[in-house]
């Protein structure tokens, strides 16, 4: 220790102030005089600056930032410089200055390498977290598969790679691909052999779970490099997109050779991103499958759009319940007669209960009625057969319906109407009077025997027969909020509909009921108007004579 003290010369005064033990200090320290020469250097500082011995110029042995800091410290005097920072070799250092009386400065050096690495990592991590949060909200916003694929490759190129190719499992013999380079997304459908890209087949199978892998750019097939990718491929990573139990696809990320290759932390990050994209993509696929099934079911269950048949107008309107699990109770159908002289059979009904069970029962009724069409001459007989087909020992779920057999005669339309336990059809005369059809009968599907009475009605030009479900009359609302629409309001509304075309009658009733309901909950609502037209129709609408109309 004494040798250390003995070795100090010109900086005596300073050394006495900082104490003799400074040479043993755990921090590197060096003393530099006002002219920039190294006066003293302790053991640790000597490790950092091996060329620095007392007498050498600081500028020859230390980095510029320290030389510059020293100059400012000397010039500015006490308090001018507290701490300067900079890199030196592999280290990041902070240098703290203590000014001596003779203008010399003791520089205490603190190694901040780990801290600055940690801070950089943190910044990267924060950016990545922000990116992932943003990516998730964008990816999850759309349940459309193509949009989701587009977003995944766009986001991947924005942050991870120069180009990205998303490969999804084969649809038929082709694999749908989305690729992005320079912000432009292209969708393709490609016949490809997943085995040609190492790791791709496993990623697309989703089992066994595979990590993402670096692959040799040289083995990349042509389809995997998007058009517009500038320059040779430098590095490639294939990352599986894990779905919910099913593989959603794989993401191929490409970097140009003039870019740094993927490092380990980036590869982990890519995997986390892929997990989010995969989750979003599989949600979109699941939605597509579900909605496809629902759409197919609905197409079966939803009423047909109606038009003129053999000189009679048919129009229907259907509004499903606001209560989604309660949809499926009402239905209507029109079975056109074979020729102008034959009867057309219209049916409107309401199945007890809601949801899938009701939908199944509705489907059964509609298909059974289709099969029984040749027997429509006798409504009573047809209803007995339908009743027999629907009876079940397990439950008493029933349906109510109205059958209308319709035939245009020269000036008027002849209707045979039968209610099977259903609200009675209303007849709107040309003068605006409204009457219930004189039919009655038993509901269908719950009792061993059913009976029914059929009414015959003639409709003159501009006259309408309205079939409806109780969703109309039992709709709750009105200006005071809780009254039933009821029979009286329906009949008053219909009185204004004399002379209107069938679609206009349906639209009018639907509008009034919707206005009545306002924002209240409601049941299924179905209406059908059967009208004798006042004038001849545009035949082009029937599709018989494309492009022209006939008298």
């Amino acid at each position, binding site marked *: 220790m004494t040798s250390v003290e003995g070795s100090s010369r010109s900086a005596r005064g300073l050394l006495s102030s900082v104490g003799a033990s400074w040479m043993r200090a755990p921090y590197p320290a060096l003393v530099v005089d006002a002219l920039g020469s190294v006066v003293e250097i302790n053991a640790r500082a000597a490790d950092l600056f091996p060329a620095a011995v007392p007498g050498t110029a600081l500028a020859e042995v230390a980095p510029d930032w320290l030389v510059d800091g020293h100059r400012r410290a000397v010039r500015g005097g006490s308090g001018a410089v507290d701490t300067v920072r900079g890199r030196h070799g592999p280290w990041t250092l902070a240098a703290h200055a203590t000014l001596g009386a003779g203008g010399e400065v003791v520089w205490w050096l603190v190694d901040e390498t780990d801290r600055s690495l940690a801070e950089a990592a943190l910044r990267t991590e924060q950016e990545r977290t922000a990116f992932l949060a*943003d990516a*998730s*909200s*964008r*990816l*999850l*916003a*759309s*349940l*459309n598969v*193509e*949009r989701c694929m587009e*977003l995944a490759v766009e986001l991947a190129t924005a942050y991870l790679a120069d180009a990205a190719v998303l490969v999804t499992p084969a649809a038929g013999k082709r694999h749908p691909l989305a690729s992005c380079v320079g912000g432009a997304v292209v969708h393709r459908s490609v016949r490809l052999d997943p085995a040609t890209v190492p790791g791709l087949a496993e990623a697309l199978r989703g089992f066994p779970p595979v990590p993402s892998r670096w692959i040799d750019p040289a083995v990349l097939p042509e389809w995997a490099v998007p058009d517009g990718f500038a320059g040779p491929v430098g590095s490639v990573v294939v990352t599986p997109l894990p779905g919910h139990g099913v593989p959603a696809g794989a993401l191929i990320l490409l970097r140009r050779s003039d870019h740094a290759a993927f490092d380990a932390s980036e590869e982990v990050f890519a995997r986390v991103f892929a997990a989010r994209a995969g989750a979003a993509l599989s949600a*979109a696929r699941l*939605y*597509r499958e579900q*909605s496809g099934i629902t*759409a197919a079911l609905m197409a079966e269950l939803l009423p047909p759009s109606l038009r003129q048949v053999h000189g009679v107008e048919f129009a229907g309107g259907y*509004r499903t319940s606001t209560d989604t699990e309660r949809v499926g109770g009402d239905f209507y159908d029109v079975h056109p007669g074979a020729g102008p002289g034959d009867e057309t059979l219209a049916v409107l009904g309401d199945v007890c209960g809601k949801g899938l069970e009701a939908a199944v029962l509705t489907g059964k009724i509609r298909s059974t009625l289709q099969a029984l069409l040749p027997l429509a001459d006798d409504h009573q007989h047809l209803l007995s057969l339908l009743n027999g087909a629907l009876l079940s020992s397990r439950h008493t779920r029933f349906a109510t319906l109205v059958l209308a057999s319709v035939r245009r005669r020269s000036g008027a339309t002849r209707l045979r109407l039968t209610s099977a336990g259903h609200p009675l059809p209303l007849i709107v005369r040309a003068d605006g009077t409204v009457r219930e059809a004189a039919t009655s009968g038993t509901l269908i599907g719950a009792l061993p025997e059913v009976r029914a009475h059929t009414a015959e009605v003639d409709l003159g030009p501009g006259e309408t027969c309205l079939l409806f479900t109780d969703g109309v009359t039992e709709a709750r609302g*009105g*200006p*005071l*909020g*809780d009254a039933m629409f009821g029979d009286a309001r329906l009949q*008053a509304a219909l009185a*204004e*509909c*004399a*002379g*209107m*075309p069938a*679609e*206009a*009658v349906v*639209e*009018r009733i*639907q*509008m009034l009921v*919707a*206005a009545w309901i306002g924002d209240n909950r409601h049941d299924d609502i179905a209406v059908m108007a059967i009208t004798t*037209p*006042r*004038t*001849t*129709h*545009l035949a*082009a*609408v029937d*599709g018989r004579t*494309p*492009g*022209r*109309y006939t*008298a």
Partner: protein
Amino acid sequence: MTDTTAVENDGAVLTHARAALWQAVCDRDEYAAGQAVFTALDAGAAVEDVLLDVVAGVQHKVGREWAADRFTVAQEHAATAIHDRVIAAMAHRAPPAPPREPAGTVTVACVDGEWHALPARLLAEVLRHRGHRVDFLGAQVPTPHLIAHLHRTAPDVVALSSSLPVRLPDAHSAITAVQALGIPVLVGGAAFGDDGRHARLLGADAWAPDARAAADLLARGLPRPVPGAIRQRVDDLPHLIDQEYSLVLRGKRQLVRDTLAGLEERLPAMRAYTEAQRERTAEDVAHIVDFLSCALYADDSRLFTGFLDWTGDILEARRVPARVLDPGLALLQDLLKDFPRSLDFLTRGRAVLAARTAPARVPEPGAPA
């Protein structure tokens, strides 16, 4: 088309077709209606011009005639039905060219609660003829149904139509929900104001005053909004923070009841009303509250005063003085005395009624039938 004679001829053809279609609609003669438009098409008129200058023109006139009490509700509905069939027949006769690549896919729909589907349908037909692939969802599309459709089809743009200002809150939900999917929204219809101010207020990506302007805008394309960006109502409409809108909306039933009770007290004649007359009166009061709450929503007094002015015209066309509306407004002022914005709108509304000199004016369509 730059030839002046051709333009003049076109003009004459369209004028003639309009007159013929108007006559056919008055006669409720669908055959003659078809003849009117096909004659124009045979004479070389463009499909778009026939749709917008003939069919839409006549439909507009029908609305004016109804407002002036020269057309019944039945005639109005019958006219709409005839126009629907004419449009269908035109589409059948002149199928649009198959979509070319650059023209994007468009979903056209009416806002929930909007029954006037014809303007949206005309736009759909115009876009089809300009080469877009179009899904027309029709009148009254509940927002969840619209969103489900968009998830399935992912169109480039959604075009939303609304004629009723009381549907602005529904339009707002639809706009933000569609934009959150990353799909831009173009809006149109009387509800958004004659200068599109309510479209801007609700954050729509674009607004068009008519179908041609809408088609021109869509031809240029709209940028996609950032998907997943969830906007709250109050982000667009900071005035909603005072909760007046939601309180008036929630208290609507009670407001209507109390106003009705107050009217009976003040106007002895009302006590002799039949049940149906009472219900009409209740409906009128409910309408006033609806328009008051939509004015609160948009924070635009003109929505309320405009409605009262329009209703005044409708009443006077039916020989009812507009001042019958005043006692209801006065009662609402009493009931809403703790709501400064409502009070302001009601005061302005009463002033508008008081200033009316009751000339025989022909009102524009666009409010509830």
